[in-house]
């Protein structure tokens, strides 16, 4: 019991970082602590958070996925294409998510069966999926989506005053949190990342675990893409460019180790909040975009260094 509390305390590093940033912003900007801005902020981070949740699983197995942004783009374009040709919105969304799952599975297969390092495998599929998106969309945004209430709801709706994307993010968080902590699969994710060889010798099919992990990430990326599509009322061929970097940053800021086997999903949520709060706050303070990049990079560095120090 005692051990557990201490353990959790040492994981507080990222949270403390977040709180400090929030306090500073609260003092410097009047608009920061309004209910409106908080809901707005949560909605904004939902996209990165969903991708980063998947990325947490991937990184826990010792992998990395650079293709999330391209998967997001392809899934969004596909869904939007089906919608604009009049397909039932829920079916279109379902097929889109399935496509995400399959693209992720493809990553997983290349990595496990092709024995290609995750970095390079997903670097290649990042290019391939982006190219496929451009071919599919002919380089143009897809608009004229359905006016279906349910599809609009996904990105723009509210339930009890809470933006629907936020609800989706929280549901995904809850489900994934339990999977990671309370299921056999979750346990396997940690052990494959901690020591793949020992896991295999304990009877775990490490390849399957990895393929699933990339598949889940692919699906979550498309879910994020569908939210984006619904919010923008169109799918962009260039959507998701560089999203992998924000997702990885969220995971690492949250304290998950890039070498695998160690980390937690709550940290990733905190990491996504740190990035989101920074983006939001720098906008609120109208910091010049040149300096924004310096500040953002600096804060991320600081947070990570402080976290390392506290351990």
């Amino acid at each position, binding site marked *: 019991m005692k051990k557990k509390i201490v353990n959790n305390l040492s994981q507080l590093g990222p949270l403390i970082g977040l709180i400090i940033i929030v306090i500073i912003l609260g003092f410097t900007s009047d608009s920061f602590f309004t209910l409106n801005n908080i809901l707005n902020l949560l909605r904004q981070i939902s996209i990165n958070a969903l991708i980063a949740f998947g990325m947490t699983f991937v990184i826990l197995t010792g992998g990395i996925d650079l293709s999330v942004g391209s998967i997001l783009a392809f899934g969004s374009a596909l869904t939007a294409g089906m919608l604009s040709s009049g397909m039932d919105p829920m079916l279109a969304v379902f097929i889109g998510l399935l496509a995400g799952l399959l693209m992720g599975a493809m990553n997983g297969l290349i990595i496990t069966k092709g024995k290609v390092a995750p970095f390079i495998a997903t670097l290649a599929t990042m290019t391939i999926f982006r190219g496929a998106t451009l071919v599919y969309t002919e380089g143009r945004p897809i*608009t004229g989506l359905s006016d279906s209430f349910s599809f609009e709801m996904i990105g723009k709706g509210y339930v009890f005053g809470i933006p629907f994307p936020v609800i989706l993010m929280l549901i995904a968080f809850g489900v994934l949190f339990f999977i990671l902590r309370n299921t056999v699969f979750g346990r396997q994710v940690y052990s494959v990342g901690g020591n793949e060889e020992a896991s295999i010798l304990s009877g775990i099919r490490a390849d399957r675990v990895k393929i699933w992990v990339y598949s889940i990430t692919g699906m979550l990326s498309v879910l994020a893409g569908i939210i984006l599509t619904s919010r923008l009322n169109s799918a962009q061929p260039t959507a998701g460019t560089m999203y992998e970097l924000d997702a990885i940053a969220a995971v690492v800021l949250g304290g998950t180790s890039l070498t695998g086997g160690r980390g937690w999903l709550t940290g990733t949520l905190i990491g996504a909040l740190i990035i989101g709060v920074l983006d939001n706050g720098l*906008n609120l303070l109208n910091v010049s975009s040149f300096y924004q990049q310096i500040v953002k990079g600096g804060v991320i560095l600081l947070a990570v260094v402080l976290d390392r120090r506290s351990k």
Partner: protein
Amino acid sequence: TESPGSSSDEDSGDGDESIKIGMSISTLNNPFFVSLRDGAEAAAEEAGYEITTADAQDDSASQVSDIEDLLQQDIDVLLVNPTDSSAISSAIESANSADIPVITVDRTADEGEVATHIASDNVEGGEMAGEFIAEQLEEEGDVVELEGISGASATRERGEGFHNIVDEMDGIEVVAQQSADFDRSNGLNVMENILQSNSEIDAVFAHNDEMALGAIEAIESNDLADEVVVVGFDATDDARDAVSEGRMDATVAQQPELIGEEAITTAAQVVDGEEVEEFVPVELELITE
């Protein structure tokens, strides 16, 4: 050194004047240039010209390589849509030394010998947007500027034109000036954030339509659609629709297809040795309905 592309009369067997055109585009990850390319390719096909297109993906160095690669292929004329006016000069110079005539499209080249330039002027476009906003606000109000990718020439020039106008007016204040990277979803997020601290916004100028359309989503979901004037740039299909639906107030049209078509026509004239104007302007147009 002798360049393989140095003689332009290799295809001249048939009197049908089939010419070979090389075209280097700054990026096709942007609908504007996709339209430009489509316009050019359609026109070339119609005239029976051969055209080879390269996409530099917004990287100046790739563009120089692209042009070098094009110059290896016996082209008769080179159309260049520079990623950046200053960075393109050496590529233009290599074309010059290979005796291939060069036409710049949409953006100019700072140095090198160019047969003609076909474009609409970004600075002027920024000014048009500024004037339109000033007019709508009766020279009084708070304005937001959504900038393109930091350091990109379109960002610079449109911003410059816009500020040429609004900075002169005491009543107009640019209360927020933030980059949204020419991207629709960034336009949405940045605009949402700006609205949190500036609820009394009167107008938004976005350096392109993508960002403007994102900003409109933010404005609409804050129920401010009637209060805020939004002006974009490019007049993409989406933006034209938004203007005609009354969701967007105006967009500066560069008519990319027309630029493309014009480029092909002019290219044929250049190859034929006809005299062409130094600058072939493609009218900018402010679409307001």
